[in-house]
Each structure stands twice: as C-alpha cells, then as structure tokens.
C-alpha cells in the first residue's frame, strides 16, 4: 500500500449530493474539516481537531477507487459506488466500515413507461436481446446474471441514463430520489435494488495496519445497520398509451445525439448558423427528446462521452461529440463502425500527458527511461481517458504502470494520488496552477460530427445524413 502519507491519516470527502449532510455529520461527530462546503475552491482540507488528519474533496465514484488503491485511508461515499466497485473488482481492498444515517434515494431497475416490459417477470421471460444502460455497469451485469436474463448487453454511460429507454435501451439501472422521480422521467420502476446511504469506507490495508482509532471512535455511535431493499410493488396493467412526443420522435428516420454540458452553448450557436432549428435545445430545459424543424430528424440530448458507443451500437445515426471521445472509443474498439464526418471546429482542447514540475523529466522518452530506472514503481496514471492513456503508455514502452479512471478534475490527484495525468486542457492554465508540466500533446481535439457506418450504407439515410452534413459544413466554413 503505497502513497498513504507516512504519518497522516487521509480522508476522502464527497462532492455533490452528500456534501452538506456529510459536512453536518462530521461537525456533529467532532471530525470537522475547515472549508468543507459547496463553496470551497480548495481540494485539500485540514482537520480542525486532529493534527494528523487531512482530507480531499472528490467525486463519489473516485472515492471508492482511490480508497481501494490506498491513496486514502478512509472515505465517505454512496452505497451505489461501493457496490459498483465490488461488482467490478470483488477483491478490491475496500472495507465497508458502516452505514451513516444519511440517505439519498435508491438505485432502481426501470424501463420506459411505454415499454412492453411491464413487470420483472416479463423481463426475465423475454427472449430478445435486452439492452441495459447504466452508470453502474458492474451492478447491471451482476443483476442480469441474477435475473438469468437470456440475452443481454450492458452499455456503460457517464450520465443521463434515464434518457435512453425505450429507443436506445430496454432497461436502465439508475439512481433516483424516489419512484416518483423515475415516473416523472417517463420511466417505470421494476425493482428497487438498494437504498443509497452514505457509507464510511476504509482501505483494508490501512484498517489492519494503522491506528486510526481516534478518528473511527468519533463515528462509532453513528453507524447503522444497512436496510434491505425490497421489490417495488408494480402496478399491473399494460403500458401507457403512447405519448404524442414519443410517437413523433420514434417515427423520425435519423437520430442525432446532441451534447449537454460545456459543449451545449457552442453547439447551439453552430446549429443556429446552420439554420437548423432545434426548439428546446437552447437554455435550461430538461427535456432530452427534441423535435427539430426538419421532419425526418429526431434529437436526443446525452453526454458527449457516451456518444461513440451509442452510435456504434446503432442507437443513433449521428452525434455531435469530441474527437477526444471518438479517439478514446476507437482505442478500446478499433473495429467499431463509427466514422467522423466533419470537424466542427469548436471545443478545441489538447489531450496531454503531464506530471509534477518536481519530477526531473520533460519528454515521454525521458519518462520511459525514468520508469525503467525504477523512478516510479509503478507509475500511477490518473485519466478520464483510460484507453488513450493505456495506448500512449503502451506505445511508448513505459514499463510498469497502472491507470486509474477519474471523473473530472483529475489535476487534483497529482502529485499525492497519481504520478502522471492524461487529461484535456484548453489553455494549460489549470495545469500551471497545480504545478504540473506538459510532457507530450497526445491529441488535438475539437468537436466533430460522427456517424454509424451502417447508416451511411442505407441509401435513404445516406441522403439525409449528407444533407445535414452539408448544412453543418456551411456553418463551419462561415466562421472560417
């Protein structure tokens, strides 16, 4: 177990849904951290009471990974991410110390309210290939095995899982506040898999080798026995009548995925210049199915990270994503039937390899030699692009390395929790602020239009895709 500070105890604190409740609980338990609030810009925090205790604020899914690899001794994260970690890596060094009295929703198996699968029994009996979409692919795969699904495929996604059924998936395994939350998204809950409580987790090596009793004692009165989740009673009867929007959406021949998040604003501008009217896309709406002015085009708003896989599997004909995510996908699946049709010019980033300014290495070749001489043992690599990172390291004959997946703000992991960063940067400013230096630009990326190769072979689709491509190409050229 390397990289645990030689003296201090390191605690990983969650961002997001558990942040304020965990902060209150830590205060009440007498384990306060300065600046642990949603306003903080700090990643690293100090304990107000224990000198040896420090903390970092991380995404919950990063916490299960980094406590397992031993970068943190203790952490707080939702049961869903603990389950996912354990489902993927049963031997992960992650100990569930106990459940904290903080509860945020549950993880459900659901289908579209308009699906012909109206109950769990029908799902089990189904003979067709069921597509499961989930942010928890490990949990979803185990569930498919438990339910003895006859044929299934699991599609991991970064987010917006609820937007996939019924057209792009049969089933979704997702987190939701409650059943009403699912119903309001046009979904039908089939089974509540488990409630999501915040868990106190520990690295098993730390727990057996280090004295953390003072800190653990603060939690002793606050741990609960986890509750079991039961099946959700499902209302009988068939599917709901088809909604007008859904019918109209499904009847359109060409399906286009548009990005949410950072890429949305420049995408909206490009569509405007192209004269492609997509009502409801601009602004802050939560509707993910949109009907553009062109009557053969259906639009769904999903994460750009998920688009190459979704286009490859034929759930969409076209998507506006980044070349970085396309490349990441092709590194994993070289024979994937996804092609880039057009460089859209916006969203320019570089995917770079960077490491701490303190490391006496300034090129990839030097890094390779440094690792060969035992400079890092092994080289710990943090990346949002695990496949690009893996290929970069392999192609450059870097000796021993491990790639740890991260979900954003990867620069915060260096130098304590990782040695090398493979991540995107626009200006390089954040890297400099974190005292990191770029040793290689692996890829220059901008937004692009991608297509499914099968769709391009279908003459009727091809003509429409060409038309759309021409509209967008015109708009790109306009900006020069």
């Amino acid at each position, binding site marked *: 177990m390397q990289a645990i500070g030689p003296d201090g105890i390191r605690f990983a604190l969650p961002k997001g849904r558990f942040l304020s409740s965990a902060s209150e609980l830590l205060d009440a338990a007498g384990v306060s951290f300065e600046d642990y609030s949603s306003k903080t810009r700090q990643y690293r925090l100090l304990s107000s009471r224990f000198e040896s205790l420090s903390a970092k604020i991380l995404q919950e899914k990063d916490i299960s990974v980094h406590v397992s690899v031993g970068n943190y001794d203790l952490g707080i994260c939702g049961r869903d991410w603990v389950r996912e970690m354990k489902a993927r890596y049963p031997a992960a060094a992650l100990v569930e110390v106990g459940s904290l009295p903080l509860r945020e929703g549950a993880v459900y198996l659901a289908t579209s309210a308009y699906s012909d699968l109206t109950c769990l029994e029908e799902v089990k009996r189904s003979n067709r290939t069921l597509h499961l979409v989930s942010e928890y692919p490990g949990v979803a795969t185990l569930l498919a095995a438990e339910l*003895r699904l006859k044929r299934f495929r*699991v599609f991991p996604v970064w987010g917006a899982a609820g937007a996939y059924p019924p057209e792009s998936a049969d089933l979704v395994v997702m987190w939701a506040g409650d059943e009403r939350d699912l119903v309001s998204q046009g979904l039908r809950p089939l089974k509540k898999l488990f409630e999501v409580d915040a868990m106190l987790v520990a690295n098993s090596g730390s727990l057996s080798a280090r004295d953390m009793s003072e800190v653990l004692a603060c939690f002793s009165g606050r741990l609960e026995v986890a509750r079991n989740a039961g099946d959700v009673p499902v209302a009988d009867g068939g599917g709901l009548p088809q909604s007008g929007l859904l019918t109209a959406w499904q009847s359109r021949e060409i399906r286009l995925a548009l990005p949410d998040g950072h890429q949305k604003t420049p995408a909206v501008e490009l569509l405007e210049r192209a004269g492609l009217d997509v009502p409801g896309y601009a602004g802050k709406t939560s509707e993910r199915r949109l009907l553009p002015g062109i009557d053969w085009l259906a639009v769904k708003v999903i994460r750009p990270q998920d688009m190459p896989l979704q286009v490859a*599997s034929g759930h969409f004909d076209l998507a506006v994503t980044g070349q970085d995510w396309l490349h990441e996908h092709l590194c994993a*699946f070289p024979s994937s039937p996804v092609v880039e049709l057009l460089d859209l010019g916006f969203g320019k980033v570089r995917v770079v390899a960077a490491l701490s300014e303190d490391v006496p290495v300034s090129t990839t070749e030097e890094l390779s030699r440094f690792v060969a001489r035992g400079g890092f043992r092994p080289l710990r690599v943090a990346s949002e692009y695990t496949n690009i990172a893996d290929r970069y390291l392999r192609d450059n004959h870097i000796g021993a390395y491990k790639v740890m997946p991260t979900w954003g703000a990867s620069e915060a992991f260096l130098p304590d929790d990782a040695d090398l960063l493979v991540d995107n940067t626009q200006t390089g400013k954040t890297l400099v602020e974190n005292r990191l230096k770029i040793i290689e630009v692996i890829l220059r990326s901008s937004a692009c239009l991608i297509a499914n190769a099968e769709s391009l072979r279908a003459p009727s689709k091809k003509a429409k895709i060409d038309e759309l491509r021409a509209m967008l190409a015109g708009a790109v050229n306009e900006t020069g």
Partner: protein
Amino acid sequence: MDTQSEPQLLHGKCRGMRDMLPGDMLRFRRVEDAFVDACRAYGYEEVKPPTIEYLQLFTALGTLTPAMVGRVYSFLDWDGWSGERVVLRPDSTIPVARLYVENLAPRSPVRLFYVTNSFVFEETGRKNRERWQCGAEFIGGAPVVADVEIVLLASDVIARLGLEDVRFQVCHAGLLKALIDELDLSAQDKEHLVESVLEGDWRGLEAAVAGVADRKRYLPPLLSLKGVSSGYLQNVRALSAGAGPEFRRALDQFIEVSSLLDELECSYEIDITAVRSFEYYTGICFQLVSSAGEKVGGGGRYDDLIPLMGGPNIPACGFALYVDQMMLLLDGRDGGTARAAVVCDDSSAGAVRRTLEVARAVRAAGGVASVGIKRGPEFTGRFRWVLRVASETAETVELTDSETREQVTCSIAEAVERLVS
C-alpha cells in the same frame, strides 16, 4: 528501503497464475495420457472448445450460480462496442454442451472428451486461477447404464495411474432436490435451502429435516447417508411409501446405479453431501476424493442442460478430473526412454556435422538424443548414455553407461542398437 534484499524480478508472473516446470509437465502428461487412452478405449472422441465464450452462455441458463458469475474473467472484446461481454471460460461442461448443440446435434449418442483449462477468480491469489481439467461427456446416454459407464471410465483412469487411495463418493442431486421439495416449506425457503447447500452450507437443511413430521420419518436417515451400501438405500425406500413420485423415482435410480456398481465390484461410498455446485446436475453425482480429503474430480447427470441451450431433449452425463489436484498425487518420475547425450570435444564444422549425424541415427532408431559440443558439466547425471564422437572421420564412438559407469568403444551402429534395446 530494502536495498539489501534479493534483486527484484523485473517481470514476475501474474498473481494466481502458475508456471508448469518440466517436472510438473511430466506429471501433467501422465494424467492426460492415462485419461486420453482410457477415453479412446471407451470410444470417446476428442474436442476442444475455444477459450473465450460469450458471458451470457453462463449467466442465462441458470448454469452457473450468481456467486460463480461474480468470479469470472469477463471483459469487452475489441469489437465489444455492441455491449456483448465475453469471458474466459469458467467451466468446460457448458461450452462442450454448446459445442454439441451448435455442431453435432441431433446426433446421439455422442461421447466426447477434452483437456482444457478454465479460469476462475480467487481473491488470495494463492490458489490457481487457471485450472486444468480432463473431462468426458456422454451426451444421449440414458440413465443408469450411462451413469455406470462414466463412473467406470473415471475409475479406469485412476487405475491406469495406479492411484489406489482415491475414493469414489456417490450421491444423487435429483434425490437431494426432491428431499428439499418434500419439506413443508414455502417456495422461497426451499430456494434458500438449495442455495445454501450449493454454497456448501448444510446446517439449514439439517435443521429443517430434523423437524419433519412423523409421516416423513424417511427423510432424516437420508442426511446421514455416508459410507453406506446400497442395502441402506433399500431400507430408506421401504420407509418412504408416502413420498412423492419424484423422490421415489430418484431413489430407485440411485439404488439401480449403486447395485450395478456393487455387482461390477467397483468400490464406492454413498455420501449425500458429495454434491457441490449441482446447479446443472439432475441425477447421479459423484466425486473423487484423495486420501488427504482433497477433491480431485467429479461429475454427474445433467439432463436439462442440452434442452435449456435450445438443443434436442437429450439427457447427458459426464465427469472431469482436476489435473492440478491429480498431479499432487503423482511423483515426477520420467517413465520414458533413457536419454542419450551425443557429445564431441572438437568444434570444427566437420566434427559438428558428424555429431549431428550420430544423434540423428539414435533418434531414427527411436531413441532420445541431445547434442553437446565441447562436453561440459551439463552432461552428467541427466543422461543414461553418453556417446562421445572423437572427430570428423571417426567410425567408432565411445559409449558410457552412466548407471554402471561401463565404457566401451564400438561402431556407431552397435552403439545405437545398444542404447535403444
């Protein structure tokens, strides 16, 4: 840091994986040869399924328990953008059943055998994660006669290996399932009992059986079935007049098989707990146990597997020997030919050619020859014979028998004859 310790290997083997060294491979081949020879003698044909299969082959049919599924090596293939996961096969019976349904069905009966590895994750990394097995499947074999055949085949392999200490424990998965069905429990409780027995936990079943009503007094004796004869089974049968038809049918079949084995003087023990991971087993089951109590093989009847896979409604049974465990029971003796070293102290091109020719003559006569130019210390002890070639033109060789230390100079033909005789 520990700079004083041994220099670390730059690249060691993966955790949970095993290098098979020459001594291991001698043992491995002895098991394999005995198995292959026995299978051929019984008319079995060899097949080899691929290493990688689709994950759903193992998840969909109830062929592996979810606990097992949680331990498979599964991943997305290079073309896994379709979302279909593949797996390094965790078991071989299921792939062979698939192979049959896809290629050979509805031909029946079909007797198949294979030597394969399978991959199961194990946390500590101290046990092998890659396991080898020698398996035989009798597809289309009707109950009783086929059950007896595979037990005889397995015991034939054991006999060929000269392993007198390996015991056969026989039980009946169908009887165990019927027994659980006979209990007055809810469907959910029964399912739970099956699951815990699958995991090797019998306490729940014992408690449930201990509490049965008087009219089901035939149930408790079944759980103490251990090391008994077929006569004991007859007694249980006499008491179980009130039992359901499934129970009676399973018990009759069990009695029939055990009586036949008795008559064929095949030694075995009845042990109801000898059934593990019987998820796909439906009838007679058996396991092979070494004197140290180690399970070295097992098998049984699995009538539902072929139809579940979409194949014809054909019964089947089979068994596998766990090669890694069997190897521990054997010594590393090299039962093969005495080996010869053909050596020459002269490294001129002509002398080397001469040496290679002599070695070729030894091999052509069916001997085993290794060549060494400049006789060195590696040619002591490991070879029964040492043939020394003096020079390019030498018509004679100096032949040394390392066992007797006798040394003669003779013609090449004489030397070859002597060492292959």
